[in-house]
């Protein structure tokens, strides 16, 4: 009975009796959820347009953040460094399109996947060579990210919302909306969806696959940079970040590999879920729940709804 009590009753009693704490937990879940969502977004963009699962998305986050910090440490003003980093991500996109995508077009997906693993190690090597392997501090305040927090009282306790977290959420939301708008309203967005749907038909109307690929890699480079800045502001910028990047995988399983809303909702579910579970049920399993919770959820989804929450169920008419 004790077990049942501690599973089905105690956590809810805790939640009810300390609402301030619950709110704090939810907030933290929300913040990490947004970051997961951003990570997943980068994957989705590339997967949608080319069917490639980009293993290097995690390292792109680290690479972008390191470039930004590195350029700043050379004495550049933060905003100049930011602009230059965007430029570097653009060059990277062009490079990937020119030397990987174009060469390997029409190869099986697994070959392209292997190529992105190769890209991962290339970026790790390049990053270590240029910036060294030491963890760096994100230049959050230089970029104008606010520090400090809003504190307010709930019940008998205090809930603390860090400005940096609020900024992260706002930036993520802006990014998602503008990408969504871009893809649904403009010619390039339409071309991108066209490529995602049917390569041959896209070619026949004169859409250039090369151009589209460069654009999506660039877009996910930007998303990676944003992710890197936000994440770096919370912890440090180091190659260890790319392990966290793997969290995007369960998010994708949850949300569907081709859905932008899916990436967002999936990210938030994982974010909320793992925090709540860790805090209220974690003790039963000896803690550390956060590191595997997402994967278990993903596994359950694979069993019952393999196309994910928002995955496309293509209805074929014969």
């Amino acid at each position: 009975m004790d077990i049942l009590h501690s599973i089905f009753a105690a956590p809810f009693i805790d939640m009810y009796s300390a609402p301030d704490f619950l709110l704090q937990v939810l907030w933290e879940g929300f913040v990490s959820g947004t970051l997961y969502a951003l990570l997943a977004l980068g994957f989705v963009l590339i997967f949608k347009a080319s069917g490639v699962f980009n293993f290097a998305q995690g390292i792109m986050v680290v690479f972008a953040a390191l470039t930004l910090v590195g350029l700043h440490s050379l004495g550049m003003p933060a905003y100049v460094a930011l602009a230059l980093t965007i430029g570097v991500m653009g060059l990277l996109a062009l490079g990937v399109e020119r030397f990987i995508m174009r060469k390997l077009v029409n190869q099986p997906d697994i070959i392209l996947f292997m190529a992105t693993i190769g890209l991962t190690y290339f970026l790790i090597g390049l990053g270590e060579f240029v910036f060294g392997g030491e963890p760096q501090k994100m230049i959050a305040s230089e970029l104008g990210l606010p520090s400090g927090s809003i504190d307010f009282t709930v019940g008998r306790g205090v809930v603390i919302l860090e400005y940096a977290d609020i900024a992260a959420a706002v930036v993520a939301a802006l990014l998602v909306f503008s990408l969504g708008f871009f893809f649904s309203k403009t010619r390039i967005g339409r071309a991108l969806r066209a490529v995602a749907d049917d390569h041959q038909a896209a070619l026949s109307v004169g859409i250039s696959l090369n151009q589209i690929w460069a654009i999506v890699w660039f877009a996910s480079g930007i998303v990676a940079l944003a992710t890197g800045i936000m994440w770096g502001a919370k912890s440090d910028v180091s190659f260890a970040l790319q392990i966290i990047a793997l969290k995007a995988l369960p998010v994708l399983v949850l949300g569907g590999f081709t859905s932008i809303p899916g990436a967002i909702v999936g990210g938030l579910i994982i974010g909320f879920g793992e925090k709540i579970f860790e805090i209220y049920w974690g003790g039963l399993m000896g803690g550390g729940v956060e590191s595997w919770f997402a994967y278990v959820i993903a596994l359950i989804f694979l069993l019952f709804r393999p196309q994910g929450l928002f995955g496309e169920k293509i209805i074929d008419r014969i």
Partner: protein
Amino acid sequence: MSNEIMPGDVLLELDDVSLSFGGVKAIRNVGFDIKKGEVRAIIGPNGAGKTSMLNVINGFCHPQEGTITYKGVKRHDMKPYVAATQGIARTFQNVALFRGMSTLDNIMAGRTLKMHKNFFWQLFYYGPARAEEMEHREKVEQVIDFLEIAHLRRTPVGQLPYGLQKRVELARALAMEPELLLLDEPMAGMNLEEKEDMSRFILEVNGEFGTTIALIEHDMGVVMDLSDRVVVLNYGAKLADGTPAEVSSNQDVIDAYLGVAH
């Protein structure tokens, strides 16, 4: 760019083209031309290399031998992108639409090459890019009106019946305002009424806009009604070339179609 091509002049000429996949010869030394303003049919039994022929013309396949002369410019092969920019549009045998998008978006995608505002404006969907979008929308609406698919504007194409999907595909090709329109079995899988509609549209496209059309079709009745000249392929080689009347009285053609033993 060469001189302007007048109706009746040769728009596209294939000379001694051969194409093989591995060891399989899909096209053997075929040559024929398409004149501006005509409806040219490519017919032949299954496996005769008809679709490969279209693929060569719009650059999906690159022939190992032979040359393609389009608008007076000789080249060894076409690239799909170049073919599209030079005014070659096509439809596919098994309908290749952007299934996740609405009818309207599919047809708008046909305007891609006509839109020029750069990436920067696109990024903000502002000013010139927005005005441009509106301008192209008007062109697309004319195509929608022409093909009588106004009621399908917002419908995702995946939900449309097959006959209408073919019509949307034609609309997308027409939105490119092509000079040469390649139609790969435009009436396959259609019922009688849909075939009649499609034939009417093809004739109207040819008549009203002067678009040159090359089409592959199995229904001989349709071919005879629609086309000005017919080229017949058999096992990748050219069997006959001429007006529908000439071709249908050609003994080789009759044999190939009726399967007389050689």
